C-alpha cells in the first residue's frame, strides 16, 4: 500500500479491484462506522456534564428521533428492505428498552453505559434464543449505535441519506447497509474490504453499478469530494480532469446505447439465444424483472441457507420461491438446488473435517448424508409452482454421472416438477454429456467450476488465475462436447458461469451450440450487442478458431481479430 491516509489530493489515484466495466463521476458519500465512544463519556450540554434529568430528556428524544428516522426510511424503501427497517424501528420503539435505559440514567448512570447495558441484556437473550432471533442482534446493535450518536450529537452511523447522486464509499458494506441504500442516488460503490465475488460486488453487478472493492484508504476521502470511479481499470481518481470525465462520459454513452436494445437475444441472422440473469434471492428477481432479460438462468438458492444454524422450513422456502417466480411472470426461471460445501459451508450440512472439500461431499452429493434437505427443497419448489402458477426449471449442482442425473430427475418429478436438468461442471459429466442428457431435459454449464476441475486449480488461489481462464482450450473442448450432445439430442444446453458475461467468449459459446447464456443482469446489454452483430456461421468460425488455438491468450486473440470492427471499437476490446 503506497497511498497515505488523509491524502485526497487532486488527481490522486487509489487502486482496487473493479467489478464490471462501467464508470461514474460524482461526490463521495461516506458510510460512517458506529461511533467509538467510551462508555463513561459524559453527556455535555453547553460544555458541562448534564444532570440526570437533562440526560433523561435528551435520551428520550433521541429514541423518538431514531424511531421516526427508521420509519421514514422504511416508508421510502420497498420489499425486504422495508420490512427490515420497519422491524428495526419497532425495536427502537420498544417501551421496555426505553424505560430501562431511562431508569438507569435517572439513577445517575452514564448515557452510553446505560444504553449499552440494556441493549447487551436483550442481545444476550436473543443469542440464547438462537436462530432467527440471533440474526436480529445486528438490528439491535444498529438501534444502539443510532441512539448513542443522536444523544451525543455525533453524525448518525450507517448509510447516509443521499440527497444527490453520489459515490458511496465504505470500509465494508453489510447486507443491511446495502439494503438501506437509496439506489436511485447511488452512482457507484467503493469499499476498502470485500472481494470481487462478495455480497457488495454481486449486488452492484445486478444493478449495473460500477463497483470497486479492496481499495485501501478509500474511507479517507472527504465527504463531498468529487471522484471518478472506473471499474474497467479498477481506479478511483480524486478530482478527475476533463479528459478523464470525457472518457467516462463517452463510455457511459456507449453503455446507454447498448442498453437501448431490448429485443430478445439472437445473432445477426436471427438465430435465437436466450439471454438470462443470475440471481440469488427473490429480491434479485424483483430487481431484474423490469430489465430486458428473458428470464433467470441460475437462481442460486444457497443464499437462503447461508448464515443460518438450521435449514429453512419448506414453507419458508416455498414463500421465497413463489415470490421469485411471481416476479418474473411467465419468463423462464432455472432454480439450482442447494450447492453447499467447499467454499460455501453451511452449519447444518457441511461435512466436518474434509481434507479436500472441493472434491468432497458438496452440491448434489449431500443427498448421500441428508436426503431430507433436498426433498424439503424440491417439495418447496413444487408448492411454489402451485402457488405462483408458473413452472420453474430445476437443476442439481455437482452431478458426475448419468445415474446421479437419473436419481435427481426421479426425485424432482415426484414433486410435480416437469422440466428437470443438471449442471455440467465436473469434467466427467461433460465427457458423458450424451448419457446424462438422455436422463434429463436440459443441462447448464457452470464454467467456473468446470475450469477448476478440468485444470485442477483451486478457484480461490489468485496466483493460478491464468489456469482458470475459461478460454483454456481444454475447458472449451469440454464445453464443445456438451454442446454437441445437446445438438444431437435436441435438448437445451445453457451456460451460467461468468464466462457467459464476456461478450467475446459468448460468441464462441453460441458458435459451439450453446442455446442460452446466463450472467449478472448488468452484463446482458454488451453480450446482446455482440451477438446481434455476428451471424451464427461467424460464431461457428470463431468457435473453431478458439478450439484450434494452443493457449488461452491465443484463443482469445484469434477471436478478437475476427470481431466486426464496430463491435471491437464499441466494447473496447
Amino acid at each position, binding site marked *: 500500500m503506497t497511498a497515505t491516509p488523509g491524502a485526497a489530493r487532486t488527481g490522486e489515484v487509489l487502486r482496487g479491484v473493479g467489478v464490471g466495466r462501467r464508470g461514474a463521476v460524482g461526490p463521495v458519500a461516506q458510510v460512517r462506522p458506529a461511533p467509538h465512544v467510551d462508555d463513561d463519556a459524559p453527556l455535555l450540554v453547553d460544555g458541562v456534564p448534564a444532570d440526570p434529568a437533562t440526560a433523561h430528556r435528551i435520551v428520550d428524544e433521541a429514541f423518538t428521533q431514531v424511531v421516526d428516522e427508521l420509519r421514514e426510511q422504511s416508508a421510502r424503501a420497498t420489499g425486504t428492505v422495508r420490512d427490515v427497517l420497519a422491524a428495526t424501528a419497532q425495536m427502537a420503539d420498544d417501551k421496555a428498552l426505553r424505560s430501562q435505559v431511562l431508569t438507569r440514567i435517572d439513577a445517575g448512570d452514564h448515557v452510553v453505559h446505560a444504553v449499552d447495558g440494556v441493549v447487551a441484556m436483550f442481545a444476550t437473550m436473543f443469542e440464547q*434464543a438462537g436462530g432467527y432471533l440471533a440474526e436480529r442482534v445486528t438490528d439491535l446493535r444498529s438501534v444502539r449505535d443510532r441512539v448513542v450518536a443522536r444523544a451525543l450529537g455525533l453524525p448518525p452511523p450507517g448509510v447516509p441519506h443521499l440527497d444527490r447522486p453520489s459515490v458511496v464509499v465504505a470500509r465494508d458494506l453489510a447486507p443491511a447497509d446495502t439494503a438501506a441504500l437509496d439506489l436511485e442516488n447511488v452512482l457507484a460503490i467503493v469499499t476498502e474490504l470485500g472481494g470481487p465475488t462478495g455480497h457488495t460486488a454481486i449486488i452492484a453487478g445486478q444493478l449495473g453499478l460500477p463497483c470497486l472493492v479492496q481499495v485501501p484508504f478509500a474511507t479517507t476521502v472527504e465527504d463531498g469530494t468529487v471522484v471518478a470511479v472506473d471499474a474497467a481499470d479498477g481506479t478511483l481518481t480524486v478530482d478527475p480532469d476533463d479528459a478523464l470525465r470525457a472518457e467516462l462520459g463517452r463510455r457511459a454513452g456507449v453503455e446507454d446505447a447498448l442498453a437501448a436494445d431490448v429485443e430478445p437475444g439472437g445473432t445477426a441472422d436471427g438465430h435465437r439465444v436466450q439471454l438470462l440473469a443470475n440471481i440469488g434471492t427473490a429480491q434479485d428477481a424483483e430487481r431484474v424483472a423490469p430489465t430486458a432479460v428473458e428470464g433467470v438462468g441460475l437462481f442460486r438458492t444457497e443464499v437462503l441457507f447461508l448464515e443460518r444454524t438450521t435449514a429453512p422450513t419448506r414453507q419458508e422456502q416455498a414463500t421465497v420461491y413463489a415470490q421469485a417466480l411471481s416476479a418474473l411472470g411467465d419468463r423462464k426461471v432455472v432454480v439450482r438446488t442447494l450447492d453447499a460445501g467447499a467454499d460455501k459451508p453451511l452449519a447444518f450440512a457441511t461435512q466436518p473435517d474434509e481434507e479436500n472439500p472441493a472434491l468432497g461431499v458438496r452440491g448434489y452429493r449431500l443427498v448421500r448424508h441428508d436426503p431430507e434437505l433436498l426433498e424439503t427443497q424440491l417439495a418447496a419448489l413444487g408448492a411454489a409452482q402451485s402457488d405462483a402458477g408458473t413452472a420453474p426449471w430445476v437443476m442439481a449442482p455437482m452431478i458426475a454421472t448419468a445415474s446421479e442425473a437419473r436419481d435427481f430427475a426421479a426425485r424432482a418429478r415426484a414433486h410435480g416438477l416437469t422440466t428437470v436438468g443438471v449442471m455440467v461442471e465436473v469434467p466427467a459429466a461433460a465427457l458423458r454429456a450424451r448419457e446424462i442428457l438422455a436422463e434429463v431435459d436440459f443441462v447448464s454449464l457452470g464454467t467456473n467450476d468446470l475450469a477448476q476441475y478440468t485444470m485442477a486449480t483451486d478457484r480461490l488461489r489468485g496466483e493460478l488465475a491464468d489456469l482458470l481462464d475459461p478460454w483454456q482450450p481444454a475447458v472449451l473442448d469440454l464445453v464443445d462436447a456438451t454442446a454437441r450432445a445437446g445438438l444431437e439430442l435436441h435438448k437445451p444446453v445453457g451456460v451460467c458461469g461468468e464466462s457467459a458475461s464476456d461478450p467475446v467468449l459468448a460468441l464462441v459459446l453460441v458458435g459451439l451450440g450453446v442455446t442460452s447464456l446466463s450472467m449478472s443482469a448488468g452484463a446482458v446489454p454488451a453480450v446482446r450487442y455482440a451477438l446481434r452483430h455476428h451471424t451464427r456461421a461467424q460464431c461457428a468460425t470463431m468457435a473453431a478458431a478458439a478450439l484450434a488455438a494452443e493457449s488461452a491468450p491465443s484463443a482469445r486473440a484469434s477471436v478478437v481479430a475476427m470481431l466486426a470492427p464496430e463491435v471491437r471499437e464499441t466494447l473496447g476490446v
Partner: protein
Amino acid sequence: MAQRTAVVASRVGLHARPAMIFTNAVAATGVPVTIARPGGDPVDASSILFVMSLGVPHGEEVTLSTDDGAQQVLDELVTLLETDLDAEDAPTQPAAGAGS
C-alpha cells in the same frame, strides 16, 4: 391478579409478524399485561423485545396476567394468540414441519 392461558397458534411461533401484532394489541389496551412460558418468569407483554426473546414456539401454552378487573382484555388477547397471525402471507398448503 387475573390469569389466562393460551396455546400459540401462529406457525412460526411468537416471532416476527405475530409478535409485532400481539405486542401492538397489548399496548393498545393500555393495561399492564405480562406473558410467561411454562415455568418461566413473566415479562412485559407489550415489549416486542421481551416477547420475541421468550422464543415461544408454535403450539406452546403461555400464561397472560394482568390486574383484576381487566379480564375482558385477557380474553381478547387469548383469542389473538390462538389465531394463526402469520396466515395471511403463508402458502396455502398445510404446515408439514418438513424443514429438518
